[in-house]
């Protein structure tokens, strides 16, 4: 059953950046867009299971640190070779300076 879990504080993520969040044996990536909005996806690239939080956020895309596969982190959409499988995304809300994701 889906539950809301606290992932980080708002100030833990810089604008246009990403951090890793591990919970209950799973790993996620939490993003902050250049406009300051928060998003969350699965933490591992769909190509070779690499932590996306080590990658580079540019505008609305996250680029995997290993092979430069890119995803739109707002929709999870894979943006071309070598990645072809979309990333799962999760709902995000902010409460009292904290960022929560529904997993």
């Amino acid at each position, binding site marked *: 059953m889906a539950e809301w879990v606290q992932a980080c504080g708002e100030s833990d993520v810089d604008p246009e950046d990403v951090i890793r969040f591990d919970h209950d044996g799973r790993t996620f990536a939490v993003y902050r867009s250049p406009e300051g909005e928060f998003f969350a996806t699965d933490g591992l690239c769909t190509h070779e299971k690499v932590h996306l939080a080590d990658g580079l956020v540019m505008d609305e895309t996250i680029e995997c640190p290993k*092979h430069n596969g890119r995803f739109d982190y707002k929709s999870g959409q894979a943006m071309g070779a*070598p990645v072809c499988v979309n990333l799962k995304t999760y709902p995000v809300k902010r409460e009292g300076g904290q960022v929560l994701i529904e997993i």
Partner: protein
Amino acid sequence: MAHARGMVVVGAGEAGTRAALCLRERGYAGRVTLVGDEVHPPYERPPLSKGAGAADALPELKAISTREQLAAANIEFLHSARAAAIDPAEGTVRLPNGTVLFYDKLLLGTGAAPRRLPMADAARHCAYFRTYDDAVAIRRRLGPGSRVAIIGAGFIGLELAASARERGATVTVIEAQPRILTRGVPAEIAAVLHARHEEAGIEILCGEGVTGITEDAETVRLALTSGRTVAADIAVIGIGATPVTGLAEAAGLAIDNGIAVDDALRTSDPHIFAAGDCCSFPLALYGGRRVRLEAWRNAQQQGALAARNMLGAGEAYAAVPWFWSDQHGLGLQVAGLPDEGCCIVRRDLGGALVLFHLSADGRLVAASGIGPGHAVARDVRVTEMLIAGRAAPPAGDLARPEVKLKSLLAR
């Protein structure tokens, strides 16, 4: 009789396969034939030498595209087929079984082959490493207690050393140069890696040449210049690779450290292109310097670009060279050409290190980094963008880890 011409790709490695797929992605509706000399469907080479899957009995064959996917894309895949001859005047490629393929445009992605060590030619316990079958043959002889000698401390040799050690083998690496990774990796980064290999129990002998190889039923013995002998169950030779150019040479194409192409990846014949490890090309970012790269991303990007240009796009290849290696959990990445730099700025990330290579006029020409996992990936990636933008950022900013490199990009 008129033949249905189409696009022919010789070589089903990274470059050739990406090209075939890209032709379809770009909407090309004619015939596409992909000719590979191995029996396997096109697969990714990088995982073969790296540690991943060390517990499995056999290396993983990670397909770039399965036979089903190729068929679904209407790409005719001919396996176990080594093209015998090109006739540029007729626009044909002949296969050993007599099949003749008619092309509008031809792409050569013939790759590179391991450089041979002549004194090992008759040896039964010596192996080379390039293909999946090579990886299987070597893997079968690795295990707890087995002894492996590796000739050459380049990337292939060191990655194999690390994965063999993970499987419990005793590993000795023999390198003729005074240090490991003399090609393209700065001494300080190589030293970090060298120390990590030794910590893992691997013996690395630098400045040692192999002067003779003798074998008996079970053992290969390597005589070294110092007089020492290294005995092993198997010796893997990793002394570099040479571009596969025989087919192109026989067809009269220009050769210059590989099949010579222009910035659009076109050979000296306007209907024939080349991409990946087999070709040398000019890099505008470095004053048109001609380079040949043996790197996964280069092969992938050149394959895709060649496909677009076979369809008439006329785009120039302008990517910044980039490669990575994984050994013992350390990730190494290099972007750009370090030998173009004349001074180095260090950025100490605490447990990870990035070196920036600057030209005499302060322009960033390369970055190299090493650290656990992907600790240096982001900085090296941003540096690549800075290089592409011909940036000359202040050395003080580069040196301070609290300065986000992204802030140095012109937006």
